[in-house]
């Protein structure tokens, strides 16, 4: 009996950028406008089919970071990759995401990650320019805008990240 392949994936980002909502969209295909902040970490599982192989993604939906609650980097132990999330309507959350990535890399070395600029269903509040995105991509990053509300860009991000954790 071959054991099922499992990969630990962490959701990282400032508070209220939509980490929990993205996981719920991906795992249960639902979305809610209500905001219930995450304390600690919430674990979910999603089985994906990659090249004919089933992989269990163990999703660690971490509490968001703010000035007071710094991320406990110990949560990332054993992670195969992570999803950095920023809120495209709140420019400061992109700075938080960039800073988180630096700290993770410091402690755990280069891990596969994707950057999602979430809430792209709110175009009139959007503050990230196409130029910002191009700049990040030129740095070799996998960057997409997404929406937990509509589902746009969500599955792509997880699949891409999962397949990179297998390499």
């Amino acid at each position, binding site marked *: 009996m071959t*054991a099922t392949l*499992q990969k630990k994936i962490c959701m990282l980002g400032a*508070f209220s950028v939509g980490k929990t909502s993205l996981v719920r969209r991906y795992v249960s295909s639902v979305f809610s406008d209500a*905001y219930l902040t995450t304390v600690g970490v919430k*674990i979910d599982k999603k089985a994906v089919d990659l090249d004919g192989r089933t992989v269990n993604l163990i999703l660690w939906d971490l509490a*968001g970071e703010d000035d007071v609650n710094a991320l406990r980097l*110990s949560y990332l*132990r*054993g992670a195969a990759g992570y999803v950095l999330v920023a809120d495209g309507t709140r420019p*400061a959350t992109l700075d938080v995401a960039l800073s988180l990535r630096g700290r993770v890399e410091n402690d755990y070395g280069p891990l596969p990650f994707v950057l999602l600029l979430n809430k792209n269903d709110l175009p009139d509040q959007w503050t990230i320019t196409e130029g910002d995105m191009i700049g990040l991509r030129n740095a070799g990053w996998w960057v997409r805008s997404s929406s937990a509300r509509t589902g746009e860009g969500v599955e792509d991000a997880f699949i891409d990240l999962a397949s990179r954790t297998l390499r």
Partner: protein
Amino acid sequence: MVDERAVAWLQIDNGLVLTGAGGRLDRYGLAELRRGEPVLEQAFFLEGLLPLEQPRYFVPTMELAGGVSADLHFYSDAGSVWLLLLDVTAERDATRRIQQKAYDMTLLQEKEVLLNRRLEAVNAALRETQRELEASRDLARRELERKHLELAEARTLQLALAPPPFRGVVGGRAVTVDVVLEPAKEVGGDLVDHFLIDDDLLVLLLGDVSDKGAGAALMMARTHALFRGIINRPDASSLFRAPENAARLVNRTLSASNASCMFVTLLIAAFDGTANRLTYTRAGHVPPFLRRFDGAVERLGAAGGLPLGLSEDAVYRSASVTLSPGDEVLIVTDGITEAMDPSEAQFGEDRVAEAMGGDLRRLLADVRAFEAGGVQSDDIAAVLLKISHAQGRCPAGQRPPHGKS
């Protein structure tokens, strides 16, 4: 106390096989654990945490199935790892209440800052627009003032073109000529003139351009200049004695180069003081009024033709009447006959006829009273010729104002 914490434990060997478990496993959704089998597939939240790298490891506040949160304490001991789970759901909820308030507040503040920034931007744009508006309004106002000034100058010039009254002798016959000229706008399209030819021929001109305003004023000035030009020709006498000839000449010039398609209705009349005859040509103009010395009013409706400026080939004729002492000839533009009262009724030709026998001031006063303070809608012009009873000589200073002597 211990039960509130709902302690549960797992024992895992170096091969990551579950070797033992106990306590309140059900609280954490772990009631179905199978001992002797790999632990990671049964407790997938352990993925990545095992094998342990330190003797102790702590993962706080992990939410598992059923919304229960646990603190995870790992200890390594003699070839196996012990995992202790303690329920911290209540603490988590307490923390969440505080954290939620703090985040909601921060989000509100962020929103406020953003809104203020947007408001500021909108305000700045508004102020800029307002500045631009004011600038263009100033410009427009200055432009308008300049236009008004120019028009006022033009009006002064045009009114200066209207001749003064005439009291004098024409071919031994004492006559008086009075005129009015009142443009509806700053400048108008009516034309009034009179002048003597050869001492015995008095020429009266009254024209009305088919439009109002500056364009009409130019057309009027042009027509006027053409008639004035004829005075200096050697054949001026014959052209004015048979006024259809003067009309034909001017019409030809106007029609040949009339891009704006304006036209002029014109009454030209020549009074021969020796023969006591008035010869006139009507180029589309209202028939003049003739009031006989006995008070009977006739209309001079013969000798009609096209207004000037419409067709180079237009044919003009003239007609004559004999005038006696005490007769009056009044030539008007339709600005008088068609003056309107507030109910849009017209002043009409009968009222003009009734107003005769006095002077032009009385006629004008009647028209103004009829309009009852309303707006003058058309240019007003009139010429009044009166034949005196007196067999006149020409008193000093009463020479005719214009024309060749």
